[in-house]
């Protein structure tokens, strides 16, 4: 288990390989379907994004409501594939890492190679456990989207595993092939 800091430096991105387990500390941004749509519309209009995306990490997540006295509600990853249509564009303007769960498109995997990025998975359904690694949460944009607003999170030892690295490595494919038994 390797400890890394977000924003993730290019040195670290170059070292990460599909299958590496990491604990992430630092700052990550939360956005899912509706927020992504709006980020792309903002870029299309030639306007500034609501946060500096250079070198940043986006976590695909829509938390449950925060109980009194808690930092955030349960906070596990949502299915990343729904964001595939928007991802190559965001990588091209500086996004470096994404955390979610589930399969990505070929276009996303190509964009990770081209723009030197990485896709990590958190454990789907480990939402109460993941919430423990979030030390601060604030809404920074698109408040009107409710549970889909963009949040800025501070995290300490957030558990994730590298699925797609910048060299074309793909844990979902490699891991499956390793344990497959063909009749």
């Amino acid at each position: 288990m390797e400890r890394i800091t977000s924003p993730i430096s290019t040195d670290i991105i170059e070292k990460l390989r599909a299958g590496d387990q990491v604990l992430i500390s630092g700052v990550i941004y939360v956005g899912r379907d509706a927020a992504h749509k709006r980020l792309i519309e903002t870029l299309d209009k030639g306007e500034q994004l609501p946060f500096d995306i250079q070198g940043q990490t986006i976590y695909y997540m829509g938390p449950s409501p925060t109980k009194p006295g808690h930092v955030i509600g349960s906070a596990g990853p949502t299915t990343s594939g729904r964001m595939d249509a928007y991802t190559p564009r965001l990588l091209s303007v500086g996004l470096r890492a994404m955390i979610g769960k589930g399969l990505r498109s070929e276009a996303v995997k190509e964009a990770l190679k081209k723009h030197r990025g990485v896709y990590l998975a958190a454990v789907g359904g480990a939402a109460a456990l993941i919430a423990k690694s979030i030390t601060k949460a604030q809404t920074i944009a698109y408040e009107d989207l409710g549970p889909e607003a963009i949040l800025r999170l501070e995290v300490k030892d957030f558990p994730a595993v590298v699925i797609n690295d910048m060299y074309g490595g793909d844990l979902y494919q490699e891991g499956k092939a390793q344990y497959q038994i063909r009749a």
Partner: protein
Amino acid sequence: MKEIKAKDVTATVARLCKEANFFLGEDVLAALKKAREEEESPVGRQILDQILENADIAAKEEMPLCQDCGLAIVFLEIGQDVHITGGDLYEAIDEGVRQGYSEGYLRKSAVDQPFSARVNTKDNTPSIIHSEIVPGDKLKIIVAPKGGGSENMSRFTVLKPAQGRQGVIDFVVSAVEEAGSNPCPPTIVGIGIGGSAEKAMILAKKALLRTVGEPSPDMEVAVLENELLRRINTTGVGPGGVGGRITSLAVHVETYPAHIASLPVAVNLQCHSARHKEADL
């Protein structure tokens, strides 16, 4: 004739919504622990550890097991000698969902106008209610919150009768294999064989309510369940889809007579956060 007050239905549904989202069933926990013992992939084992630790935290802190607290699927078995008083039964259930999702700090994930505006209804209603009239004077209520990630991987087909048993196996195994990491494996696989299109899918969903790993009472079906589980666990998908031996914890098959021309097969996948709680009134 037994009278049951609508407000008691509301209170029961509210409680079941919260309990289902906080407390994973003992059968699911036992199946996950067994999977942890058997899994060979080191990353797969770590994922199972996280899933088990998550269940512990959720129960202790009464936090949702998953941020996706699902649509509220409600199964009713209504005794024919029951009379509901003081309100509309389905309204009473929706009010229970409203209260349970609000009091439990559960995420509201229902959107209206699903093909266009997709406006959140803000209280997770309407629930999806399946009711059956049965003999007796009891009302059984089962609340089964269902998340989007696994539900999105549902599959349905009508095979040619000649494709038979092997056709069923091929269809189910490929559905689970192609779903890969998306439905949050290790999954429980609900399968409905026979009936009509809608009957097959309801059978598949009902199959998910069975105690995890309890075989079908029909010996031939139980043998099919075993073979399906064995085949699914050779795909290599594994916990979290990262590769491993345990892709599914159990396969539950329900069957119903079909038309002479048809062999309907429905697959409804359940993520490892297999949530359902029930009560008898």
